[in-house]
């Protein structure tokens, strides 16, 4: 802190008080919450161990994952959305982190867990769960975004809520063993033209091919998230973490790793997770999630309730190419931009929180956020994306999102010229 004289401090304080007089509310009668003895200040509360594993307090029960039933044929093969509108900071609690299952979430005990490495290896190996915990392990925070996040919005403004437009994302601190360690253990052929095919133990046996360069780089075989065991819905006891790449590749209930001499071209890397462009050709192997950001508050589920005056515009930014270096915010639909403050310097391939501390004049706003990552990439507008890709894409929509906030503080998902 810089040195401030007592005089200076007093002066500053007085100036601040004067400046805020207009905005400060005043009470006409004493607040009974203060003047009257409240139950919680008199009676005792819950004892220790009343909830051996604590859940959020009942007043927060609306902060939950939610699905949109009509999006999929069955909840067994479906998706729900993280309540990102109601969260702050960057870490997503496991209990409200989005789920995406292809054949439902399975219960697989650690004792019944096996991981096989086979294919182009010296010795095909089988590991138990306990084996994995004997390898040197690392901790890293990474975002996991479904390639279909914001996919509905290709067709224009569709769903009114950031939970539904951008909620197929979560960000956790993972503990796990680098995949390269296990490849080395099996004596895998790690030449750059080889592929690593990874497969899950559930009924969908979701499988994806990962090029060797990525497999050796930062892929983790993870068994803990945010300090505790993975949740069933996120692949307990072991899932793959493929930093910066589309969530479908983060195979849950990982049971097999096969070194192959070409991509397997599984269903999830041909018929799904590929995009058709205007001329009918499709683009495949689009693994990296490009830089993206969105304002989480205000947003349709988070109206401004306090009227004109000081306020915080807050949101999330992320990039599969590395660190977020800057986020700009516009209040007039992209005519003028202000650079927001980053909650803390962004980690690579992890969510970064941004804040714009500002004053609302009470007039309607067209709020947008625009992320930049360390490669210099600037998050594109919907129009820019459509110009490149047409309107039949499903995945990888990282467009700039617009919220129309009216004079009452209510926000709505809109598209702008």
């Amino acid at each position, binding site marked *: 802190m810089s040195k401030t004289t007592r005089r200076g401090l007093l002066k500053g304080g007085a100036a601040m008080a004067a400046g805020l007089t207009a905005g400060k509310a005043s009470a006409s009668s004493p607040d009974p919450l203060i003047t009257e003895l409240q139950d919680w200040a008199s009676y005792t509360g819950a004892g220790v161990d009343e909830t051996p594993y604590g859940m959020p307090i009942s007043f927060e029960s609306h902060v939950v994952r*939610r*699905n949109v*039933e009509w999006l999929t*044929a*069955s909840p*067994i093969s479906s998706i729900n959305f993280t309540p990102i509108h109601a969260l702050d900071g960057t870490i997503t609690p496991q209990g409200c982190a989005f789920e995406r299952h292809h*054949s*439902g979430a399975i219960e697989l005990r650690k004792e019944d867990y096996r991981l096989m490495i*086979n*294919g182009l290896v010296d010795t*095909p190996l*089988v*590991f138990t769960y306990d084996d994995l915990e004997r*390898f040197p392990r*690392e901790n890293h925070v990474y975002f996991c975004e479904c390639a279909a996040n914001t996919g509905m919005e290709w067709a*224009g403004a569709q*769903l*009114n*809520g950031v939970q539904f437009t951008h909620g197929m994302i979560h960000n956790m601190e993972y503990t796990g063993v680098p995949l390269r360690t296990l490849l*080395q*253990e099996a004596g895998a052929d790690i030449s750059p033209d080889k592929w690593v*095919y990874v497969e899950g133990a559930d009924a*969908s046996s979701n499988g994806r091919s990962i090029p060797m360069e990525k497999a050796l780089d*930062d892929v983790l075989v993870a068994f803990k998230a945010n300090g505790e065991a993975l949740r069933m819905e996120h692949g307990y006891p072991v899932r793959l973490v493929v930093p910066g790449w589309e969530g479908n590749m983060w195979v849950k209930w990982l049971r097999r790793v*096969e070194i192959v001499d070409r991509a397997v*071209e*599984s*269903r999830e890397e041909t018929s799904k997770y590929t995009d*058709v462009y*205007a001329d*009918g*050709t*499709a*683009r*495949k192997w*689009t693994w*990296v999630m490009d830089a993206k950001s969105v304002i989480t508050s205000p947003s349709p589920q988070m*109206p401004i309730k306090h009227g004109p005056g000081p306020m915080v515009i807050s949101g999330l930014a992320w990039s599969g190419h590395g660190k977020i270096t800057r986020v700009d915010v516009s*209040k007039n*639909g*992209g*005519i*003028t*931009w202000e650079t927001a403050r980053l909650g803390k310097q962004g980690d690579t391939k992890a969510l970064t929180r941004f804040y714009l501390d500002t004053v609302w*004049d009470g*007039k*309607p706003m067209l709020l947008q956020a625009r992320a930049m990552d360390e490669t*210099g*990439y*600037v998050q594109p507008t919907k129009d820019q994306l459509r110009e490149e890709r047409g*309107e*039949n894409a499903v995945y990888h929509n990282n467009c700039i999102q617009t919220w*129309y906030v*009216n*004079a*009452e503080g209510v926000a*709505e998902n*809109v598209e*702008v*010229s």
Partner: protein
Amino acid sequence: MLGVAYGIATNMYAGDKVDVMERQVERAQAAASEAAAAAEAEAARVADIEAKAAEIQNEARLALASAGAGSVSQPAPMADGRYGIGRAALPEEIAAWDVDVLPDGRGLPEGSGNAFDGEEVFIEKCGSCHGDFAEGVDNWPVLAGGFDTLADEDPVKTVGSYWPYLSTVWDYVHRSMPFGEAGTLTADETYAIVAYILFSNDVIDDEFELSRETFLDVEMHNAEGFVLDDREALEYSQWRGEPCMENCKDEVQITMRSVFLVETPPEGGSDSVMNPATLDGLPPFTADGPAFVPEPTEKPVEAAAATQDVEEPAAEDGDAALLKAGAKAFKKCQACHKIGDGAKHGTGPHLNAVFGRTIGGIDGFKYSTAFKAAGEEGRVWDEESLAEFLAKPKEYIKGTKMSFAGFKKEDDIAAVLAYLKANGE
């Protein structure tokens, strides 16, 4: 420094005045001890700095290691680069799990099948979701047709119109299908089902015998339809750089409002309703902000919230509230089950007059073997059996095709039963 001091002390030119020399020696000695003290302090400081440098280096090393940039903080593996953890996989184990099939046909087992045989297997194993003609039921995937639609507004992506590799079809059917009974198809059944899907897409004729030997003779319609990720060249090159900060546009208009408003009820999930709002009365924006401030809409947030509170079931009589809750809970069923006038079978059987119905007892619906068996035992749906089934379907009738996991809340079951009774008569 010390050397300089002693030098001054010892290299004094010869003088005849001893006292002068003595004073000079005294002075030099003082200077020397001062210098010695200074040197000591200096040495201590150097040591301190060295310690700090080591600490910083160590921190940097740790940071590097935790960033995954190196393995400096990791314990050294055994001499050959391995830890000796895990055990060798047995050939039988590899054979059991390594069943994926590559585009060139590697991994295919012995066996064969054609579309003629495949039709029957497909209708039995796949038809309830994909339709008897692979046309897709409800939201389940359409497997056939859609040719020449990929450049249309809403492309129909089927095995025929979109899938580039035959191996993908075989592999997926064999490994991940049927939904809820994955891994149960024999090689012959898989060849037959795949042949039927190919036949439905005009890829082969109904006599073509699909096998490992004929596999590579099949040409998929969209084999050449894919390009590799080219975002680097097409997009990154033009979207990297310093973005515009001011006067980026003259004016901005709202061109579209959210199609759906999404309500988020306290019990979870969401309800989408069409957004009635139009573009009328919305202000254009310039650098100065909105051109005008529209009049407040009828229902600002607080009012909307207040209305919701009023709508709590307390205001309704018991039956109406139960039926309303039932209609809501039935949303979990309605993707597969129809009820009411003229309801037909969907993925699941229609539910008209389900009370008193023999389990698995409606003509024209392909029940699971488990349901047929229950029917043959003379078991009948009533309040009790339905409640039990709806709580844990897979436990109550082992082998049911119904993928629904069951209602967690007893209230929901009671409500659904009331709903079935009221709407299925």
